[in-house]
């Protein structure tokens, strides 16, 4: 309720109290035998009822606002926890990626070392046909 953002809650309690006091005073007016004062009885009653209705409506708004604020705080706390958890999980995932990538790189280097040590011996005796090279290179571009 935007009105609650501009006015403090106590204003509506004061409005409600003024309404109640006004209503009470308007009943007391009937005991005063002065006609010039008695003519204000109905307007005072009307204004008091309007004030009471408005204040009651705003009391409901205040209660509703408090309930929503509590809910907002609860969700904000959950969001903050989720953000912390997200960062934690990201770190764990990143560590796994780095570890696995390092392992793959190391294993690849080992295989290349093996190739440099053992396979090079067959370089001169094994001729690679151009068709094989073409087939391999075509296979590297399957996504194009």
């Amino acid at each position, binding site marked *: *309720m935007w009105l609650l953002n501009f006015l403090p809650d106590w204003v509506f309690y004061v409005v409600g109290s003024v309404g109640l006091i006004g209503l009470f005073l308007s009943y007391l007016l009937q005991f005063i035998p002065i006609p010039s004062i008695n003519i204000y009885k109905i307007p005072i009653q009307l204004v008091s009822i309007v004030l009471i209705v*408005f204040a009651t409506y705003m009391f409901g708004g205040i209660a509703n606002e408090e309930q929503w604020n509590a809910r907002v705080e609860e969700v904000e706390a959950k969001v903050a926890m989720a953000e912390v958890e*997200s960062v934690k*999980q990201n770190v764990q995932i990143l560590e796994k*990626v780095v570890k696995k990538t390092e392992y793959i790189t190391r294993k690849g280097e080992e295989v290349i070392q093996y190739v440099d040590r053992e396979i090079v011996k067959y370089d001169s005796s094994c001729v*690679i046909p151009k068709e094989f090279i073409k087939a391999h290179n075509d296979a590297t571009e399957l996504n194009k």
Partner: protein
Amino acid sequence: MKYIICVLFMLISGCSTVVPVTVKFPEAPSKLQTICPQLEKLKDEAKLSDVSKTITINYSTYYECAVKVDSWIEWYQVHKLIFEGIK
């Protein structure tokens, strides 16, 4: 007219404000956000050892990329659970 304005003023006092809770889209690790490289090709005069090396490098590239894809799947599943926990 005055009464109508008063009644309208009372009625619009019930208008709600926007709930001030926003959930930021979670940031994924930057290492996962790099694209997979293209596979290496053989030179025209490639020897057997060159073929073996190129194939090894390409396998490494594939497995490194597979790690990224697996990590994205894990990232999605983990963050889906985290997001569902907010509700």
